[in-house]
């Protein structure tokens, strides 16, 4: 991957026709996910995502291949989105709660019909609403891990947080979502 990164970066720096567009196309999905999960607003997402790639274009000569190009672009996207939230005074993460995530979750021994629950639009809507209600950082970490399949150490590099902190966010958020799901299922029953 690093070899492919080297070739692409060299082509962009040499000003080869279409090279930068290829770079954008290769990494736009990750950039879009990070920024959209952080700021949510579609117009802001488009503007900040473009800003991210313009920065990448401007500072590409400073990229030293210490991490994958994808991770480096992810770092730029995350920092652009974080600054945007700071300017708007939107908190990045909620303060560490004393709440024990395990207190929300009940272990179940009986069967759970995954496909029936998955087909239930109401349950889906509740889960999506709960995901949207998470703070920007947690929402982003979950999306990077589940949708973009970025490993924990790389998420740590992108966000500048310790791997243990990322893991804790993942654990707590998923347990919280499960707690909400169980509450919903309980109401239905």
């Amino acid at each position: 991957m690093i070899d492919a990164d080297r070739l692409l970066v060299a082509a962009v720096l040499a000003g080869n026709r279409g090279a930068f567009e290829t770079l954008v196309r290769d990494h736009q999905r990750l950039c879009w996910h990070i920024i959209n999960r952080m700021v949510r607003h579609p117009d802001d997402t488009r503007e900040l995502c473009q800003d991210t790639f313009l920065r990448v274009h401007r500072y590409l000569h400073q990229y030293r291949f210490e991490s994958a190009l994808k991770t480096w672009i992810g770092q730029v996207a995350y920092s652009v989105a974080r600054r945007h939230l700071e300017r708007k005074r939107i908190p990045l993460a909620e303060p560490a709660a004393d709440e024990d995530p395990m207190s929300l979750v009940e272990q179940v021994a009986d069967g759970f019909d995954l496909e029936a629950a998955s087909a239930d639009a109401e349950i889906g809507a509740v889960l999506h609403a709960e995901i949207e209600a998470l703070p920007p950082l947690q929402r982003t970490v979950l999306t990077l891990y589940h949708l973009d399949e970025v490993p924990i150490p790389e998420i740590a590099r992108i966000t500048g947080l310790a791997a243990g902190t990322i893991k804790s966010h993942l654990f707590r958020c998923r347990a919280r979502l499960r707690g909400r799901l169980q509450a919903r299922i309980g109401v239905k029953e």
Partner: protein
Amino acid sequence: MSTRDFDTEREQREWEAQERALVDERAGARAGGDANVAQYRLIARALRRPQLAPLPSDFAARTAARAAVESRAASERVEVWLERGLIALLLVAGGVALTVFNSEWLETLSFSVPERAAPSIQTLVSWSIAVAACVGISSAFALARKP
């Protein structure tokens, strides 16, 4: 994540259920009998289909075009600053030359003024010819630079 990561057995089991659900969901595995894992699979499924604003299909092309415009503007800015620096250098050099050669060269430009004219008229005419020459040279350069 095979190593023990959490303080209590219960938290560790919960984490393992979360991770197992993630792996099964990515692989599209059939639902097993573990209800704890199944509930996390439902969450993993929702997380893999988030409510994201769609990425515009022409995003890469538009961004690359904007980067090219920005890059051109930046190099033109450098060119303008170099040009200004050169002009400033020429002005300083001209001033130095004027001081060193004691304005003798100005008198050579007053060839068209009768000798009996007042010295102030002669100086004015000399400067006018010098300024006209400068404007003429600048205009010629500007015309030459036009595509």
